[in-house]
């Protein structure tokens, strides 16, 4: 292994620029003549707009234009589309009411967009927004997913606020198994709503050049081509040749920057209307109310087991909050990214899920780190723990007993997916050893002596990364393909530019992809430059989400490198006066087999661009593009074990230890992978203990609209994580890689909640705040006293 090749913990190329403040984010970009936009957002959760008077705002200092939904309607601006049509169990497509960038008749959540003021400065635009006079005919708010189907109608198009009533699996088989089982355990649980909180708030600049009739859109996007596609084909009706989307350095996304939002759409449209660039940067307050939120499920789950603890059937009934409008991929998250994962790591023979997606007067809900898979893992691992307690079995051994066995792969689950590979016991064994499971009883006794309650909790998770293949997801309703592109371009002097559709906004692609190309082509790591985030500079690509970048984008890079080597062999064979078949490529050299005659990759690249002595029929240049459409998802899996101590006096939970053993297949940069695991666990701990998006039930106002009330995890909330790895390589991609970006956020919440419930001896919902835990401890104390 080279110091910078595959498997090396190379320090990140991008960090010097980020750490010294030299990153270039959308808000750092300013265009000549630029104006600033500020949005009038709905102060109420649900209301009919009876009148909007913008005249005073139009006269305000510095104001260039004020736009409303009617102005956009007059220009035939379309609705923001949902890119995945879910067909419900009655064969009906989901209800897709229009989602106009600026509201036309009603507002449906606090923060909904009513008008856009464009002015010389941001402050002037904001001042003018206060002068817009709106009459609201208020309607009742509905914020709780459990109230949605009986609440006031959010959209006339969706009776009972039902977007879809969808199912997966064999209901009859599950019912039969439930009826005959020795044990059936049941649990109601909430998967709490989260606000993404990327470090960089969203921002956009729309810039129109009347000379070329072309737009440049600067956007905080995880997938610039997808944004271009949505803007052009669905909303603004523009040719893609006339729109360039640039997503420069982007400060985190966690899914929230996948989607096409109202703001960048409005800035793009307005730039032509006012003839000057229009910039918008979200304040943190706007991020809270208008970024697509995550999770928000209410679920009933039942698990049937036989006398010995073998799982017989799993039944899941979920209501998922979609918010006020369908965001770009909101419908696939609680369906195809959720119920398809309900087998987990277990050979449960029958599984059935019914999911109802409902509208409420809250911000749209869409993919957030893990997207559906954390929700699936959470309920499986919670109900397995409940079963272990009810049957009096060791939770580790109950899991072991039900694991899919190594000889069962490829394993067809009862919920559509086929796991290509995996081996779950080694991860469990390593995790048990790392946490010193044998010593837990002694540690618990020691805690008890100090008046503390100690608990241990398991999570044996699986996730599906790199959603694919395109034909299959298309058949399930996806409106896009899910391949990735790569272009590997040698320059004459031997440096390489790698154009990838996989956008990097914290993942470290500029480092790992350079490691990959350096190793594949045998050229120095320093000579590789990764280019991403500009539709004008890269081939069409699908972007970054669902832990797909390496498995899909990296595979495309491998394919492009293979093409480079193939062409290089022809050039080298000519230079070496040998047959192409006799030339082999290894460690950066083309060598005539069995001789010491060779040409380096750099020499071949130079020859390709200065083709004075060149093979007949071969094109000059060394620049290859590949598109890769995976054959299947990849299936990372692992076991996390958390150990906690609860203070019964205050209800405070302290995480005492955490081990994470993951199987990510082949690993390119262990340091970056470990960082992803740490970050993911931090977010999972956030969900389990701290974070909770709360809307007021009566008014629909967002109560947790700032960091004064929305609890982000901080460094001192987190324990030192201990990370271990096991490996089964993915069988269907050229690198044998899986995906690691979401695993921590998927695995962590049930591990932590199971540890807490183990400590306090009763079930509890997320987030397990001190008061909730204290109340449980109090109740038990009272019960014990009686």
């Amino acid at each position, binding site marked *: 292994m080279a110091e910078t090749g595959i498997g090396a913990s190379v320090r990140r190329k991008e960090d010097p620029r980020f750490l010294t403040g030299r990153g270039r984010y959308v808000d750092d970009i300013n265009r000549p003549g630029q104006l600033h936009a500020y949005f009038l957002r709905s102060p109420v959760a649900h209301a009919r707009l009876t009148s909007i008077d913008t005249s005073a705002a139009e006269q305000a200092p510095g104001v260039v234009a004020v736009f409303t939904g009617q102005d956009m309607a007059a220009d035939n601006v379309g609705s923001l589309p949902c890119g995945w049509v879910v067909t419900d169990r009655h064969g009906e497509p989901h209800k897709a009411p229009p989602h106009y960038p600026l509201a036309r008749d009603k507002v449906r959540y606090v923060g909904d967009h009513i008008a856009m003021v464009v002015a010389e400065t941001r*402050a002037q635009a904001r001042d003018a927004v206060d002068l817009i006079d709106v009459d609201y005919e208020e309607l009742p708010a509905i914020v709780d997913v459990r109230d949605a189907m009986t609440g006031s109608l959010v959209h006339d198009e969706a009776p009972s606020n039902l977007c879809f009533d969808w199912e997966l699996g064999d209901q009859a088989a599950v019912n039969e198994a439930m009826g005959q089982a020795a044990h059936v355990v049941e649990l109601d649980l909430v998967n709490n709503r989260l606000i993404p909180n990327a470090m960089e708030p969203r921002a956009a600049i729309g810039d129109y050049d009347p000379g070329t009739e072309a737009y440049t859109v600067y956007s905080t996007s995880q997938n610039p081509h997808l944004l271009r596609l949505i803007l052009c084909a669905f909303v603004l009706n523009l040719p893609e040749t006339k729109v360039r989307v640039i997503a420069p350095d982007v400060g985190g996304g966690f899914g929230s920057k996948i989607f096409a939002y109202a703001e960048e759409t409005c800035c793009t449209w307005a730039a032509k209307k006012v003839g000057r660039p229009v910039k918008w940067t979200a304040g943190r307050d706007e991020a809270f109310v208008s970024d697509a939120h995550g999770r928000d499920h209410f679920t009933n789950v039942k698990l049937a087991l036989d006398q010995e603890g073998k799982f017989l059937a799993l039944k899941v009934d979920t209501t998922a909050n979609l918010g006020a409008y369908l965001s770009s991929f909101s419908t696939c998250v609680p369906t195809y990214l959720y119920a398809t994962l309900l087998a987990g790591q277990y050979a449960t023979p029958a599984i059935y899920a019914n999911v109802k997606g409902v509208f409420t007067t809250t911000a749209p809900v869409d993919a957030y780190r893990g997207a559906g898979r954390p929700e699936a893992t959470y309920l499986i691992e919670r109900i397995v723990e409940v079963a272990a307690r009810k049957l009096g079995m060791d939770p580790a051994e109950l899991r072991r007993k039900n694991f899919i066995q190594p000889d069962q792969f490829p394993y067809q689950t009862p919920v559509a997916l086929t796991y290509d590979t995996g081996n779950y016991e080694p991860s469990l064994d390593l995790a048990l050893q790392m946490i010193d499971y044998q010593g837990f009883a002694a540690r618990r006794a020691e805690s008890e002596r100090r008046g503390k309650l100690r608990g241990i909790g398991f999570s044996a998770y699986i996730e599906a990364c790199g959603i694919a293949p395109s034909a299959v997801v298309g058949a399930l309703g996806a409106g896009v393909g899910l391949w990735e592109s790569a272009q590997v371009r040698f320059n004459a002097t031997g440096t390489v530019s790698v154009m990838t559709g996989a956008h990097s906004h914290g993942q470290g692609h500029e480092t790992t992809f350079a490691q990959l190309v350096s190793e594949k082509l045998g050229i120095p790591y320093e000579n590789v430059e990764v280019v991403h985030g500009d539709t004008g500079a890269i081939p069409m690509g699908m972007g970054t989400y669902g832990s797909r970048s390496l498995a899909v984008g990296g595979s495309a890079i491998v394919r492009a490198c293979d093409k480079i080597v193939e062409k290089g062999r022809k050039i080298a064979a000519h230079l070496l006066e040998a047959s192409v078949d006799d030339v082999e490529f290894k460690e950066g050299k083309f060598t005539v087999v069995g001789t010491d005659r060779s040409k380096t990759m750099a020499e071949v690249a130079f020859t390709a661009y200065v083709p004075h002595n060149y093979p007949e029929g071969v094109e000059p240049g060394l620049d290859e593009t590949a598109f890769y459409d995976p054959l299947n998802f990849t299936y990372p899996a692992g076991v996390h074990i958390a150990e906690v101590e609860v203070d019964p006096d*205050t209800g405070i939970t302290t995480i005492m230890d955490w081990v994470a053993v993951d199987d990510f297949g082949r690993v390119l940069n262990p340091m970056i992978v470990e960082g992803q695991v740490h970050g993911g666990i931090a977010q999972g701990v956030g969900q389990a203990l701290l974070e909770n998006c709360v809307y007021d039930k009566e008014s629909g106002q967002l109560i947790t609209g700032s960091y004064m009330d929305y609890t982000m995890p901080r460094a001192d909330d987190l324990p030192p994580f201990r990370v271990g790895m096991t490996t089964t390589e993915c069988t269907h991609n050229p690198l044998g890689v899986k995906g690691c970006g979401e695993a921590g956020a998927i695995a962590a919440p049930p591990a932590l909640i199971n540890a807490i419930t183990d400590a306090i001896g009763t079930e509890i919902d997320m987030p397990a705040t001190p008061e909730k835990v204290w109340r449980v401890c109090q109740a038990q104390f009272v019960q014990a006293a009686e």
Partner: protein
Amino acid sequence: MYAFEYHKPSSVQDAVAALSDKEDPKIVAGGMTLLPTMKQRLASPSDLIDLGGLPELVGIREEGNSLVIGAMTTHAEVARNETVQARIPALAKLAGGIGDPQVRHRGTIGGSVANADPAADYPAALLGLGAAVITNQREIAADDFFVDLFETALEPSELITAVRFPIPQRAGYSKFPNPASRYAIVGVFVAQTDGGVRVAVTGAKGSVFRVTEMEQALASNFSPESVANIRVPADDMNSDIHASSEYRAHLVTVMAKRAVAAAEG
């Protein structure tokens, strides 16, 4: 933020004059509450009077059996000051637990006390130690200073110049922080002073308050057990998504117990 006039007086006298002259002036000390409030357009003072140009308001000195801390002294300075650490370690610890490092290096004791946030830490120390607020006009006992939610005994043109803390025999502070903001959900300051035992609670109600029942119990026996079974009524306690009034009332007892234990060292 709305437009305002900015002033940076070079004497306390000029600052007070500006305070009396202007239509709707506000003093900015560290600005840790005022500036975010202005940015959110929840406050729109006509004039800001910045005390940053008044070095005489900065500093910590020992005077007889008291510590006098200048109004513009930052929380970080109080936390790391050797005299404070030696004479009233609980006060240094309290200051070191306010907000985050950025807030502690900008925020000031005078600003915090004048703002009288019901969840701020300093009011517990002032009331718990029986401190006096020194202004350009007079000295106000802490018992009289904190009136209600964000309300103090300060006159409109009165400026805090320092706080005088009597040095106690021993003192302890224990805080249950709001997990999001890290303000006190409940913070209890306990001190054994020449004037008797004082127990002051912040975060739990609209304003900081004393718990006489605990003070009496501790006066006869200064140990955590003395307060362990003293319950405070929940009726008029704050309640929000982080802590109900009932939970806050419970935490007053738990934090008091821990503050006493901390004071015992």
